[in-house]
């Protein structure tokens, strides 16, 4: 509970706030176990939800999923928490020679990584 954020007020409300805090955390831990292998919306849907591009009925349906799915709830919270300044700080780079696409793909996929292009494969150079 964030004591600094919420001002002290009605003791009844303070007590129920604490109760809700304890109960919801316990419930979502249980949900995390129960839903570990369940189907989840993909990143495209999750991002469209957070950016506000889902149609209302789809968004409502996803909200219902979020309140009972700890992992998707956490993913959306992380996206909401994202600092927009990071986007600005990471402006497109004109210089990508230090760790080129080829080098990244080669280190990621192995030297035999192939790109399928126009129906045929070719190996990355080098």
């Amino acid at each position, binding site marked *: 509970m964030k004591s600094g954020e919420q001002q002290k007020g009605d003791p009844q409300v303070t007590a129920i706030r604490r109760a809700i805090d304890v109960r919801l955390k*316990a419930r979502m831990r249980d949900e995390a176990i129960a839903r570990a292998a369940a189907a989840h919306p993909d990143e495209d849907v999750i*991002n469209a939800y957070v950016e506000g591009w889902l149609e209302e009925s789809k968004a409502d349906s996803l909200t219902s999923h979020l309140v009972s799915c700890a992992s998707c709830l956490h*993913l959306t*919270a992380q996206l909401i928490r994202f600092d927009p300044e990071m986007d600005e700080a*990471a402006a497109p780079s004109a210089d*990508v020679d230090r760790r080129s696409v080829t080098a*990244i*793909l080669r280190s990621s996929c192995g030297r035999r*990584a192939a790109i399928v*292009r126009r129906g045929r494969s070719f190996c990355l150079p080098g």
Partner: protein
Amino acid sequence: MLSVFESYPNFDVPFEEFRDAVAGAAAKYLIGLAEPNAQPSPAELERFIGELKIPDLYLGLACMRGNEHAWWEFDRQHRSFIERWTRHLLRSDADADEVIDAVYVELFGTRVVDGVRQSKFRTYTGRGSLRGWLRAIILHAAVDVHRAPKVEVSMDDWSESGDEFPLRHVSGGETEDSMLTSVVRERYRSATVAALDQALSTLDDHETLLLLYYHVEGLKLREIARIVEEPKSPIRRWFQRRSSKRSRVHESTVMRWLDKVYRKVHERFHAELAGKHGLKPEEIEICKAIAAEDPAQTITLSPVTRAD
């Protein structure tokens, strides 16, 4: 829409493939909105296509096809962000490097099905921004890298800590009084959990989501206010349906909003304990203390004798 073909002629995406991708996005997000299998109207389709992030979709399609020019462009636009965001999420450089490599492998795709490489880009529809989609991909990759050890540790922790209203186990050496206390406590505990769950279950999903973001995810009031302020935010739409004012949403607005939900839960929790469980006011106070109990502490209970 066709200007992307002119802007990036060397991306080499056939028009038919691009058209199929747009149709796929519409099928995913528009079909069956009003009723199962309902087709969108031409106007809905036009608006939908107008909202798609066409340059992002085009770039994603070209990368999916393995076009090297597209990969260079993707790298120019997004690599700096991918590295910054991943290092922001993970403390260790080694972990961050592992996740960055895993993301590139997933985006490129190493599995081949029916002769087609399964690039992660095939799941991107252009409905949201490519940058936002990448954020979600990176978050998932970060979780996947550490999933196995984390699950093992946390499950052990949960079962050992007994975080949720821990039961006191009655050992053979306990006195009659302490056994009585345990029995009484268990009775109140059961009523408390049932009443609180019932009170929470009567909330609208959006109210529950608000509580979860604040209490479980630890989002700050200003972060919640920020998403409510987003013109197309699903939470904002819900908020506006319930509010006569169209004023700016500040942290204090979210606080008042939370306060309303607390009061609603409190009233229903109280009514449930008094009505369904037939508890007296002093017993309800005990239940409130149990509900709000810090798992690390214990409270002293004395049985309340019933008047009837």
